[in-house]
C-alpha cells in the first residue's frame, strides 16, 4: 500500500516476477536505480488474508488504572449515589477546625471548599448587616440585628477553629440566610402566599408588636416570634437539609457526628444576647413594677431558651433526617409523633402562639444537590496508523478472490493489519473506505468494482480482527467518478475520519464543590 497520491504505474511483468522472488523493496529499489550493488535483497513474507475465524474481540472498555483524586490530590471514593468523598485523610487541611473530626465528613477539595464557603458567608454577613440597617425603625429590625450577630459570632468561632466540621457550619449559614431572605422579600413584596407560615406568623407579630407595657416589651413581642420561627423550624430543617444534601450517603456518616458542633454554638447565642441587650435597654427603660428589673432583660429569658430549644432543634433535625424522602405530610406526622412523645408539655412548633402545621420540612429553600462526581472518561485515542491508498489490479477482484491477489503485487498489506490492530484499542472511530475504479469498462461495472474493492478491504480488516462492533467502517463506492483509464484510479483510499476514543478508561480529577458555592 502506498500513500495516497503517490504515483503508482502499472508494473511490467518482468518486475512482477522479480517482486515475487525478491520482494517489494527490491522492485522499488530497482525502479529507483538503487538495487544494484545492494547485495542480496530479502523479500518480506507476503501478507495474506488472516484465516477464519477472526480473532475474538477485546472488551468494549478497560477499567481505569489510575486512582480517583480530587483536584487537591486527595484520594476519593464515590458513593452509590454518585457523591465523591474523601477516602483518606487529606495531607493538607489548611482550614481551622477542632480535633477529632472524621475526615470523610470534610468535602472533597476541602481547602478550596472552605475558602469559597468562608468568603461566601463573609458576604452574607455584610448583606445581613445592611439589611438590619435598612430595617431600622421597623420592628423586624430586631431579629435582623440579632441574626447578624449570630452569623458574626458563628464566623468568629469558625475562624477560631472551634468546630470540627466548619464546612457544615458554613453551609448552614447559607441555608438560614436563603430562607430568611426569601421569606422577607416575599413579605415586603406583598406576596404573602410565598411566605412560609412560620414567617407569616413572625412577621405579622412584628407588625402587631406594640405593647402598652412599653418599648422593650414591644421589642420582645416582635423579636421572640422571629426567634421561634428561626430556631424551632428553620434551624432543624437547615441542619437536616445540609446533612441530606452533602453527607447522608457517605459510608459511616451519621448526623450524630455533627452534634458536638451544634452544642458548641451555645455561646454564640449568649454573645448575641449580650450584644443586643444594650440596644433594647436603650430603646426603652420601662421597668417591671413587680421586681423592678428592666423588661428587656426579662424578655431575653424567653428569647433564648437555649438549652431546651436547642435540644429540641437537634431532636427535630434528627427526626427530619430520619424521615427524609417521605411525603411532606409523612415528615410532619413523624416529627410531631417524635416530639410529642418526648416533650408532651412543650410547644416545639409554635410561632407567636400559632401552631405551625404546614411547614415544608423536606424542602430547604434554594437548596440544590451537589454535582455528581465526574464519571469515568476514556483516554484519547492513540494515533492511527498512517492511512493510505491500496492499489488494485485491473478488473480485480473477481469472484471470491482474496485481497492479496486482487491488490497489485507491489502493495503492502501490513498497514491494514496495523489498522485492524488499532481498532481493537479504540471505540467510536470512523473509517471510510473509498472504492474507485479506472474508466475502462461500463459505469455500472466500475461502480460494482469500486464497491467490491472497498468491501474486500473491509473483509480483510474483519478477518484481521478489527473491532467493527465498536467502530464504524463505511464502504463508499465512488465508481469511475472523475477517473481516467490509468492505474492510479484502481484503488481504495483508507481514511480515518474520526479517531473515537481509547478503550482505556480513566478517572478524571474531580473539581467538585458543594452546591452552596458551585455556580
Amino acid at each position, binding site marked *: 500500500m502506498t500513500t495516497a497520491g503517490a504515483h503508482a504505474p502499472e508494473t511490467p511483468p518482468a518486475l512482477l516476477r522479480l517482486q515475487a522472488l525478491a520482494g517489494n523493496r527490491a522492485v522499488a529499489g530497482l525502479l529507483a536505480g538503487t538495487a544494484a550493488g545492494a547485495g542480496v535483497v530479502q523479500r518480506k513474507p507476503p501478507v495474506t488474508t488472516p484465516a477464519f475465524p477472526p480473532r475474538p474481540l477485546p472488551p468494549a472498555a478497560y477499567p481505569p488504572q489510575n486512582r480517583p483524586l480530587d483536584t487537591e490530590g486527595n484520594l476519593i471514593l464515590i458513593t452509590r449515589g454518585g457523591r465523591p468523598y474523601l477516602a483518606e485523610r487529606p495531607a493538607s487541611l489548611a482550614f481551622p477546625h477542632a480535633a477529632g473530626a472524621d475526615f470523610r465528613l470534610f468535602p472533597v477539595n476541602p481547602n478550596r471548599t472552605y475558602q469559597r464557603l468562608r468568603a461566601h458567608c463573609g458576604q452574607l454577613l455584610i448583606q445581613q448587616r445592611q439589611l438590619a440597617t435598612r430595617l431600622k425603625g421597623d420592628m423586624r429590625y430586631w431579629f435582623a440585628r440579632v441574626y447578624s450577630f449570630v452569623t458574626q459570632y458563628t464566623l468568629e468561632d469558625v475562624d477560631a477553629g472551634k468546630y470540627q466540621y466548619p464546612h457544615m457550619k458554613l453551609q448552614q449559614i447559607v441555608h438560614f440566610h436563603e430562607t430568611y431572605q426569601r421569606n422577607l422579600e416575599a413579605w415586603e413584596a406583598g406576596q404573602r402566599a410565598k411566605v412560609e407560615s412560620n414567617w407569616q406568623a413572625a412577621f405579622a407579630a412584628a407588625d402587631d408588636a406594640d*405593647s*402598652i*407595657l412599653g418599648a422593650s*416589651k414591644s421589642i*420582645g*413581642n416582635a423579636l*421572640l*416570634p422571629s426567634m*421561634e420561627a428561626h430556631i424551632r423550624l428553620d434551624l432543624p430543617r437547615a441542619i437536616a437539609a445540609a446533612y441530606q444534601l452533602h453527607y447522608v450517603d457517605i459510608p459511616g456518616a451519621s448526623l450524630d457526628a455533627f452534634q458536638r458542633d451544634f452544642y458548641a454554638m451555645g455561646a454564640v447565642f449568649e454573645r448575641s444576647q449580650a450584644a443586643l441587650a444594650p440596644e433594647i435597654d436603650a430603646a426603652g427603660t420601662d421597668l*417591671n413594677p*413587680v*421586681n423592678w428589673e428592666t*423588661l428587656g432583660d*426579662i*424578655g431575653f*429569658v*424567653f428569647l433564648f*431558651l437555649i*438549652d*431546651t430549644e436547642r*435540644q429540641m432543634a437537634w431532636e427535630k433535625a434528627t427526626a427530619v433526617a430520619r424521615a427524609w424522602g417521605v411525603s411532606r405530610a409523612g415528615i410532619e*406526622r*413523624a416529627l*410531631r*409523633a*417524635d*416530639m*410529642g*412523645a*418526648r*416533650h*408532651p*408539655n*412543650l*410547644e416545639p412548633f*409554635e410561632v*407567636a*402562639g400559632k*401552631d405551625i402545621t404546614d411547614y415544608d420540612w423536606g424542602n430547604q429553600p434554594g437548596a440544590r444537590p451537589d454535582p455528581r462526581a465526574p464519571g469515568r472518561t476514556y483516554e484519547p485515542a492513540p494515533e492511527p496508523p498512517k492511512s493510505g491508498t491500496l492499489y488494485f489490479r485491473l478488473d480485480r477482484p473477481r469472484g471470491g478472490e482474496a485481497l492479496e491477489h486482487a491488490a497489485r503485487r507491489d502493495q503492502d498489506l501490513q498497514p491494514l493489519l496495523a489498522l485492524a490492530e488499532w481498532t481493537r484499542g479504540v471505540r467510536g472511530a470512523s473509517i471510510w473506505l473509498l472504492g474507485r475504479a479506472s474508466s475502462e469498462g461500463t459505469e455500472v461495472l466500475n461502480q460494482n468494482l469500486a464497491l467490491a474493492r472497498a468491501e474486500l478491504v473491509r473483509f480483510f480488516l474483519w478477518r484481521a480482527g478489527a473491532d467493527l462492533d465498536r467502530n464504524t467502517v463505511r464502504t463508499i463506492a465512488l465508481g469511475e467518478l472523475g477517473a481516467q483509464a490509468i492505474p492510479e484510479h484502481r484503488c481504495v483510499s483508507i481514511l480515518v475520519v474520526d479517531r473515537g476514543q481509547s478503550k482505556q478508561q480513566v478517572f478524571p480529577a474531580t473539581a467538585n464543590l458543594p452546591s452552596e458555592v458551585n455556580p
Partner: protein
Amino acid sequence: MGDALHPTVVAFLAAAEAGDVDRLEELIDWPTSGVARFVASLRELPERRRPELARQGLAEMFALAAGSGPDRPLGSLAMRLTEDPMAVRLDRSGVEALIQAARPGPLPAAIPDDIAQAVDRLRRRIDTIEEAYRLSAGKRKEAGLGVLSGANHLTLVRRFPAHPAGRAVTTRLSR
C-alpha cells in the same frame, strides 16, 4: 359553685400579670396537662420506638412537676400572658369539654406496664377536674385551665377549642 374564682386561678393570673414565670409554671400540673398529647403521639410512632420515647416523655412530665424538667416549658405563652391576662369560667359542659380535651386516648401496643399504669392514674385524675376556665391574653384565647379536685394545681390545655357549650358563667375574673 358560685361565680367566685378558684384561688389557684387567682394566683395564676397574679403571676401572669407580674411576669412571674417561675410561679406560673409552678401552678401547672404538668402530667395531666401533657398526657393527652403524650398518648396521641405514642400512637403515631412506630411500635419499636414507643417504649423508649414513652419512658422519656413520662419522665419529663414528672420532672416538670418536680421543678427539674426543661427550662421554661410555658415558652412564649408566659410572655403573652403578661399582657392583660383574663380567665373566664365555663359551665358544666365547658368542664366536660376540657376533661375531654385533657383525657388521654387508649394506649397503643408495646407500652411498658408501669407506663400504662401511670397513664391510667393520670386519666382518673383528669376525671376529677371540677372547674374549667378559658384563659386569654388581650384579644387572644390562649388555653383552657382545669382545676383538679383537692389540688392546688391547674391542668393546662393549650389550644383549647372554642366549645359552644362552654358558656361563660363569669366575665373577667379579676384577682
